[in-house]
């Protein structure tokens, strides 16, 4: 479990604190879904946890840096690179990789039929011909195959359609539920969260203002629409 006690942080020359006396606990074996407005401090928190920005002593329970993976959105790759080459590159650049990639599409038992169909369809396509969602799914599929103790996904669902969002979230959920890992995900698509088991953490003005289940969260709105609960939180 990751435990953060009374963490404050601000960037040099910043007019306000990015994180302000923040307290939170991120348990293992579940998806820790961090939500909040743009600029609320989600990525700053991730950067501090991952030691991209020097990690202060207020953050406890972080594994060694080699046991962390940090996924970002929207990376640039040559458009002529085939999907299988991209997948291969992700796995073969992983320092702990034991998986061999060949010309056959990668499938495993944890994938749904829709995911198997997707991988088989795009395997020999060029990166430039894939949709944003297909690209992101391939990257996340590769990342979930990497053996780590802490997984950080920074907005893995940004800019992609509901079907791909569903597959990506399910993949991340399986990773979190079936192993003793800590999984942190930042996300703005609140409706999607209903599809998975997770703990929600709401960050606002540098503080965690809510930690709990999705059901408890939506009760703060009309009990149905999570966006209303979100608006209630930022009032």
């Amino acid at each position, binding site marked *: 479990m990751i435990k953060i006690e009374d963490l404050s942080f601000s960037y040099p020359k910043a007019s306000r604190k990015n994180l302000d006396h923040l307290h939170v606990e991120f348990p293992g074996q579940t998806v820790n879904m961090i939500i909040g407005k743009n600029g609320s401090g989600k990525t700053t928190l991730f950067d501090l946890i991952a030691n991209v920005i020097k990690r202060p002593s207020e953050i406890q329970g972080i594994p060694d840096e*080699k046991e*962390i993976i940090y996924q970002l959105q*929207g*990376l640039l*790759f*040559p458009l*002529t690179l085939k999907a299988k080459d991209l997948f291969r590159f992700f796995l073969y*650049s992983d320092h*702990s990789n034991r998986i061999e990639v060949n010309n056959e599409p990668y499938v495993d038992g944890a994938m749904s039929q829709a995911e198997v169909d997707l991988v088989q369809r795009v395997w020999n396509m060029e990166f430039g011909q894939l949709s944003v969602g297909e690209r992101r799914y391939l990257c996340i599929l590769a990342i979930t195959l990497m053996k780590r103790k802490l997984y950080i996904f920074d907005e893995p669902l940004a800019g992609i359609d509901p079907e791909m969002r569903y597959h990506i979230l399910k993949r991340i959920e399986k990773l979190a539920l079936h192993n003793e890992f800590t999984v942190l995900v930042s996300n703005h698509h609140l409706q999607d969260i209903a599809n998975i088991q997770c703990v929600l953490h709401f960050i606002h003005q540098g503080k965690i203002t809510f930690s709990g289940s999705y059901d408890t969260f939506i009760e703060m709105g009309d009990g149905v629409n999570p966006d209303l609960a979100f608006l209630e939180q930022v009032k």
Partner: protein
Amino acid sequence: MKITREYFRLFTKMMLSNKVAFVWYLLFPLIAFFIFNYQWFTQGPEINEFYIQTSVFVSYIIFVMSIDVTTNLISLRESGFFKMFKFISGSKYPIIWGKALNQIGFLFLTILLFSLVSGVIFLGSFGQVALFLAVSLTSCILGSVMVILLTLILMLLPVRQESLNAVVSMSLLVMFFLSAKGLAYSTEYGLLLVFINPMEYVRNLTFLLAEWFMDSPFPHLSLINMSFITLCYVTCGLIALKFVKVISRTHRT
């Protein structure tokens, strides 16, 4: 090593996907060289004159392609690639080695093509061409490693890739003319001029090697001075490698 090879492979594919730039890198120095020395088609050059003229182009190519390692790494850092893949690979170094090896590989090809074509056309014998290839390719490998190490220090500065490109483009022009004018040998500030002008450093390296290989005198700094500058370049590189950050120094990724 296996991970470095993967980055080398990726960066090679990236480079080959930009065919116009690749061909331009290969052909532009040759075209410029022939335009500058068109009179050699009617009357062949003296061997020393040939080395002096070609060294300007060899050092230009080496400098321009070597500094691309730093500008490309800054670009990767600004896009978030560096941050994410540092965690995937467990270290920032395979990314840096992969890029440096990829660039040195292409540089080697460019220098090979340039030296082979210019040597075959303007040198009298196979032996002279072989000797010229040995000098330029050795200079290419040694010079590129030193220039890459030196320019990595730019990654510690809070400068955007586009700003760096503008500074490099303008500095390149000045460095090229300072080098072509041979000011390093005609003033008492020769050491300083070579030190601050990596292009001139590579040119001196080429002359040193040419002198060793051919046993013929060329104008260059003493071996002690060259060793001192080399040591400074290596020190800059080691400092940069240790302290280079995986996140942009100018904006959030």
